[in-house]
């Protein structure tokens, strides 16, 4: 195992981590602000990938990937806003359990909707022309598309940080995660904040989906699968903690990249071992709050 191979594998893990960050950050925001575990979150990831597939079919004069990069997150944000307003909003004053059930139903609907529209076979999307090359690391060629993902991840994180900590809307989001009732009492339209957060989380998940579309096969079950992985990231990092989600994703990314080398079939077992270790030592996650 030479150093170039280790470097390539490390970058691989980094790319996995970036995708997980995009999904887990939305999931953790939903937990922190709305207090809901959104089972349908992976559905937006899946829809992002499928929509990219359709754009790839249409071609759009070679610009399909770049058009999708902008329009798909926006479209999914719109869908999510409608879902939040019509379905979730009536439930906020009721037991949280019902929201859990509702998102579970939504996940079922999303899965079959994708099946209905795009069919059962595996779909593949070509790597966009501009990103189809490879960078050589020692003797290994590292795909340019992975590099693109590794660049997009931190850029989105920085934008998210700016949104949360430097804009008025971000201030409202943080306030809502601390004390929703108080925020409402101060005359802020909390429902609007919730809709915004839900739309934002869906856009981030969709972005992750469209980014992985060219490097993996697209199937309806992919949303359920990624939900579990990003959920583990959130639990390790601590629910509602954005920094925790980032650390958790980086950790899981590397475990996946190097765990596969150690025990090809048991890479997932390593992840669960880490998860259980964290839960046993710090039940609220690495960066979770002390009290539930």
């Amino acid at each position, binding site marked *: 195992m030479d150093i170039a191979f280790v470097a390539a594998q490390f970058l691989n893990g980094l790319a996995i981590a970036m995708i997980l960050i995009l999904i887990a950050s939305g999931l953790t925001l939903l937990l922190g602000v709305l207090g809901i575990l959104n089972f349908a979150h992976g559905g937006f990831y899946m829809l992002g990938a499928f929509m990219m597939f359709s754009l790839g079919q249409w071609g759009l004069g070679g610009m399909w990937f770049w058009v999708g990069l902008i329009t798909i997150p926006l479209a999914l944000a719109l869908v999510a806003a409608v879902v939040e307003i019509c379905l979730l909003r*009536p*439930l906020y004053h009721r037991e949280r*359990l019902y929201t859990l059930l509702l998102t*579970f139903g*939504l996940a*079922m609907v999303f899965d*079959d909707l994708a099946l209905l529209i795009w069919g059962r076979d595996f779909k593949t999307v070509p790597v966009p022309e501009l990103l189809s090359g490879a960078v050589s690391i020692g003797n290994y060629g590292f795909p340019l598309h992975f590099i693109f993902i590794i660049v997009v991840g931190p850029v989105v994180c920085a934008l998210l940080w700016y949104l949360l900590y430097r804009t008025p809307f971000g201030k409202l989001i943080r306030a809502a995660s601390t004390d929703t009732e108080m925020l409402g009492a101060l005359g802020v339209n909390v429902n609007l904040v919730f809709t915004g957060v839900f739309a934002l989380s869906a856009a981030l998940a969709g972005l992750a989906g469209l980014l992985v579309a060219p490097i993996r096969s697209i199937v309806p079950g992919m949303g359920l699968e990624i939900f579990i992985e990003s*959920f583990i990231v959130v639990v390790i990092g601590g629910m509602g903690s954005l920094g925790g989600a980032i650390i958790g994703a980086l950790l899981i990314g590397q475990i996946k990249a190097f765990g596969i080398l150690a025990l090809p079939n048991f890479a997932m077992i390593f992840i669960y071992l880490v*998860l259980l270790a964290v*839960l046993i030592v710090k039940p609220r996650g690495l960066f979770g709050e002390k009290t539930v």
Partner: protein
Amino acid sequence: MKKLSDAAVSYGSRPIATSLVNGKTLTLAGFAAAIAYPLLDGNLYNLQLFTEIIIISLLALSLNILIGYTGLVSLGHAAFLGIGAYASTLAMQHVYPSIWAGLTASVLSAGIVALAIGVFCIRLSGLYFAMITLAFSQAFYTIAFYWDSVTGGDDGLIGIPRPDISLFGLTEISIDGFVGYYYFTLVIVALAAYLMWRILNSPFGAILKAIRENPERVEFLGLPVYRYKLAAFIISAAFGGLAGGLFAPFQGFISPELLYWTKSGETVLMTILGGIHSFLGPAVGATVLIFLRDTVLNYTEYWKIIVGSILILCVLFAPGGIVGFITARLSEIFKGASK
């Protein structure tokens, strides 16, 4: 951070109705109908469907020990179905080819696993409890999926037998056929449900309900809340394991699918759909959901979109579950009639 323990798992002061509208009669009538059913309808496909309903009803009832009675929402209950199924299969195939050996193995293994993981899970409550149970169940799913040499990996295990039952060495009863296994399942599940009902209506059950309503107060009364919750977790798992032990010979094959988190989600769904405020509500939920899936599958393979939509509508418009919905409507009618 929102507190699920505040809002979500306190079900108000509404007492759990241990019976429906005159529940005892209805339950007995249902049981009588279940006994008579194979004599009235010779359709083997329907008989199989009912067998599945009976087994999954037990699973949903066992989950309700946690959700409805103790106020703990577990998102990993399918793990015990899977553990029970694998344990009974392995016991029957490798240790002793008797259904009793299988069922005993399924109950014991689910109970022991619940004890081991419960020590960690029970410390948490609300959403955190839901998450850690989900995490543990996914860990078991991964083990079942990758431990090829024992669990058969992705393909699972096939050729699960339904050995004859020996009655005190006097006579042998075959449960290999559809009718035989239907009755066997019905008897085992009825006994298990009765036992569960007795447990939940004992002083122990009353303490569980008290814990659901207000754990601090129970603690102040000097009762070890932690141990009671752990006991509820183990009992719930053991009954869930029994359902798995019945399910493996029913289906004839098992695969890691049984432990996947969507299966746990479905079980929570049945339980809440049926109604967590009544003992048999979850069984009604299981019946409705399995029927619904079967009916929808006759028309289209896209059953999830239909069932998912119905679930969404139920959550929005019938928050008390089916049984809650019906009892509320019935009491309205009765009120109207008495005026």
